[in-house]
C-alpha cells in the first residue's frame, strides 16, 4: 500500500478526534519534476545575466572547506561583480545536512543552491525526487568538462531516476577536493637515512627502520570513528584496480566486496597492527591527537586525507611532504579521493541561471586560489605556482592520484560508514578474522539496493 502522508494534518486530526490514525491526502513534499534542459548549445553560465535585484541563498557546510572568512570574501567578490545579486550563505554543520537537506529542498523555502556529496545518501535521493537541475545546459559553454578531471566529475553524475551513481547527467560542481595520501616527515626520513618511498618494498622497510629507531612509524588515531576507514582503504587501494572499486561504489552488475584483493588487504591491515607500526593506543585516541602527534614531529608517516593538511603544515611547515601510498610492484592501484561537497541548483530556484553563474564562480580559478591560500586542495585542475615545497608535493601527489581516483568507500550505501567503522575497528583489534570482516561487509552491502 503506497500513500503520502502529512504528519501535521495527522496530528491535528488525532487531537481533535482523540483517535491516533487517520489517513489524509498529503499536503507536503510533492516534488516537481525537473525541467528537461533544452536550451541552445554552448551557453556560458554567466552570459546574459538578469539585471533585476535578486537574492541568492546557498547552503554551505561549515568546517569542511573554506573558513567563514574565506567564504565571506568570495561572496563579496561575486556581489561586486554582479551588484544586483545579494548572496546569502546558510552555513550548516555537515552532520545535520544529511538529515535535513532533502526536506528543506522539497519545502517552500528551498535555497537556490544546495550542497551535497555524491552517492546514495544525498545526491541520489535529490535526483530521484527531481529536486536538483542537471547542469548539462551550461557545462560546455562554461568549460566545466575540461575544468575538472573525469573521475572528479563522475562522482556528481547520476542516472535521472536516481538508480545509478556515476553515470548520466552532471548535477553538482565541487569547489574543493581531497584524497588519501601519505604524509611524511622529511627530517625524520633523513635522520633514518631514507628517501621518500616510491615502492611498497621501500615503504615497508622504512616502517621497520623507524620502529627500530623508536620512532612511531605510522601516526594513527581513530576514537572519533570514521578515520579508521582509511586504515583499511589505503591498503585496499594499493592492490585493487579502479574498475573493481568503482563497480562496488556504483553498484554495477556483479559488484561484490568478497574479492581476493579485499581479503588480502584485510590480512595486511591486521599484520601492520601486529607489527606495532601504528601509534600505541590508536583505538583510544582521536584523529586530532594523531594529527598533533605527527605535526609535532613524533611520527614518520601519517596516512590520511588532504583535509588535514592545514594543521600539519602549521606544525611542520615545509618539513612535511605528501605523496601517494606507494603501489606494490606490478599491481594496479587506486587512490581514494574525489571532490568534496558540490554545489547543486535546486529545481525550485527562481533564478537557476544566476545560481549557475554563482556555482561557476565558486568552483573556478579565483575561488581556487583563495582556497589554496587557506591550505586547501581545489577540485579544478589547478597549477600551483607558489614556493611551498609541502604544497607542491601535495599537488604533485594529487596529479598522480586523480588519474586513479575512486570515491570514498563508505559512499556505496547509506549505512556503510557506520558498518565499515565498526568492522574495521574489530578487524584491527583482532575481534574478527579477515574472512569474517569481508563476509560481514559484503552482507551489509548486499542489503542495500539503490
Amino acid at each position: 500500500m503506497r500513500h503520502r502522508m502529512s504528519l501535521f494534518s495527522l496530528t491535528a486530526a488525532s487531537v481533535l478526534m482523540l483517535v491516533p490514525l487517520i489517513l489524509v491526502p498529503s499536503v507536503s513534499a510533492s516534488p516537481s519534476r525537473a525541467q528537461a534542459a533544452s536550451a541552445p548549445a554552448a551557453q556560458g553560465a554567466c552570459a546574459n545575466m538578469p539585471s533585476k535585484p535578486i537574492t541568492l541563498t546557498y547552503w554551505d557546510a561549515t568546517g569542511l572547506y573554506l573558513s567563514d572568512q574565506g567564504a565571506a570574501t568570495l561572496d563579496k567578490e561575486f556581489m561586486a561583480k554582479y551588484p544586483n545579486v545579494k548572496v546569502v550563505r546558510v552555513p550548516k554543520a555537515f552532520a545535520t545536512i544529511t538529515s535535513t537537506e532533502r526536506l528543506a529542498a522539497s519545502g517552500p523555502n528551498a535555497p537556490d543552491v544546495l550542497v551535497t556529496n555524491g552517492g546514495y545518501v544525498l545526491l541520489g535521493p535529490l535526483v530521484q525526487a527531481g529536486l536538483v537541475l542537471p547542469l548539462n545546459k551550461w557545462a560546455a559553454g562554461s568549460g566545466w568538462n575540461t575544468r575538472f578531471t573525469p573521475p572528479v566529475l563522475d562522482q556528481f553524475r547520476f542516472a535521472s531516476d536516481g538508480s545509478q551513481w556515476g553515470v548520466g547527467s552532471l548535477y553538482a560542481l565541487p569547489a574543493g577536493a581531497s584524497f588519501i595520501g601519505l604524509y611524511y616527515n622529511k627530517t625524520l626520513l633523513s635522520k633514518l637515512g631514507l628517501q621518500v618511498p616510491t615502492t611498497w618494498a621501500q615503504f615497508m622497510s622504512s616502517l621497520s627502520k623507524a620502529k627500530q629507531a623508536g620512532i612511531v612509524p605510522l601516526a594513527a588515531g581513530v576514537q572519533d570513528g570514521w578515520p579508521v576507514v582509511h586504515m583499511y582503504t589505503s591498503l585496499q587501494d594499493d592492490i585493487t584496480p579502479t574498475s573493481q572499486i568503482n563497480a562496488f561504489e556504483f553498484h554495477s552488475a556483479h559488484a561484490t566486496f568478497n574479492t581476493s584483493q579485499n581479503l588480502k588487504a584485510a590480512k595486511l591491515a591486521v599484520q601492520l597492527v601486529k607489527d606495532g607500526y601504528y601509534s600505541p593506543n590508536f583505538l583510544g585516541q582521536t584523529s586530532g591527537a594523531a594529527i598533533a602527534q605527527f605535526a609535532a614531529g613524533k611520527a614518520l608517516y601519517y596516512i590520511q586525507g588532504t583535509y588535514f593538511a592545514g594543521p600539519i603544515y602549521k606544525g611542520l611547515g615545509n618539513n612535511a611532504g605528501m605523496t601517494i601510498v606507494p603501489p606494490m610492484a606490478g599491481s594496479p592501484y587506486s587512490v581514494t579521493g574525489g571532490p568534496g561537497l558540490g554545489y547543486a541548483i535546486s529545481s525550485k530556484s527562481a533564478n537557476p541561471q544566476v545560481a549557475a553563474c554563482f556555482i561557476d564562480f565558486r568552483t573556478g580559478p579565483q575561488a581556487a586560489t583563495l582556497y589554496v591560500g587557506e591550505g586547501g586542495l581545489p577540485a579544478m585542475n589547478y597549477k600551483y605556482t607558489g614556493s611551498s615545497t609541502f604544497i607542491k608535493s601535495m599537488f604533485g601527489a594529487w596529479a598522480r592520484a586523480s588519474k586513479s581516483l575512486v570515491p570514498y568507500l563508505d559512499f556505496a550505501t547509506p549505512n556503510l560508514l557506520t558498518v565499515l567503522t565498526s568492522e574495521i575497528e574489530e578487524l584491527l583489534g583482532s575481534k574478527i578474522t579477515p574472512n569474517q570482516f569481508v563476509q560481514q561487509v559484503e552482507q551489509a552491502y548486499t542489503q542495500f539496493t539503490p
Partner: protein
Amino acid sequence: MNGEVALARSKRRAKAGAHGEPRLLAFAYIAPALLALTVVLLVPLGITVWLSLEHWAGVGHMTWAGLANYRVLLHDSFVNAAVKNALRLTIFYSVFPIVIGFLIASALARVNARLRTPLRALLFLPATIAPVVVAVGWRLIYTPATGLLDQVLRGIGLSSLSQDWLGSFNLALPSTGVVATWIEYGLVMVLFLAGIQKIPDELYDAARIDGAGHWAELWHVTLPGLRNELMVAIVVTVIASFRNFDLVYNLTSGGPGTATDVPVLEVYRRAFQYGDVGSGAALGVTIVALIAVITLVALAITRRWLR
C-alpha cells in the same frame, strides 16, 4: 438562612462539582497542558508504532512493511550488540548507583545537619551537569597515556594500571559505565536521604536495644524503610539507562566496533542518518517495551525481597 435556600444552594453545589465550580472551567485550566502533552508525547507515541510498520525514507512515499522492520532488527548485529550493551549498562546505571546512593545516604544521615547540607550539595553536583559536558570532560580524562586519569595513576605510582580506556574492546563499556554511575548515584542518594529522614527514630532505638550494630541497622531498619524510594529509584534509573544518547554519542560514538553501541544510538542512526525511518521507529517501540519489561521485573523482584 432558611432551609429552602440552603437546600437549593447545596443542590447547585452538587451539580457544579464538589467545590462549586463548573466542570468546564476545570478543563480550561487543564487544556494547555493537555494539548502540549497530547501533541508532543501521546500522538507521536502512537505514530511511532504506526511508522514502525512502514518503509519510509523520511521524504517521498511510504510502503507497508508489516513486521518486516522488526524482523530485520532481530537479525541485525548492531542492534543485537546494542541491546546486550544496554542490559549490561543497567548495572552501571541502576545497581551501582543504588548501592552507592544507599551507602552515602545512610552515611550522610548520621552527619550533623550543618555539615549535611553542603555535603549533599557537593555530592549531587555531577547530576546537574549536562550529559554532553560530562561526556566531553570524561573523554578528555580517559585520553590514553596523557589524559588526566593516566596522569593521576602515574602520579600515585600505579602507571602499570594505565589502559586505553575508551579504545579497548573490553574496557570501553565499563569505562562508559563508570561515567554513568558518576551521573546517577546523586539522584538515588537524594531520594534515599529524604526517605531515611522519614524513618521514625523509635525503630532505630528498638534495634539498638536489641543489640543491632551498624550494618544490622542498615539491613533491618533503613533498607525496609526505603521500600518506596527504592521502587522509584529502580524505575528512574532503568529508564535512564536507555536514555543515554547524549553520553554515548559524545563519549565513544558507540565504538570501538560495537562495544558501546546502545539502542537509542541505533534509533538515531536509522531514522536520521540512513534514511530508514521505519526501522528506527521499530527500534524505538522495542526500547519502550524493554524499559517496561525490565522495570516491572525489577519492581517485582524488589517487592518480593522486601516483603
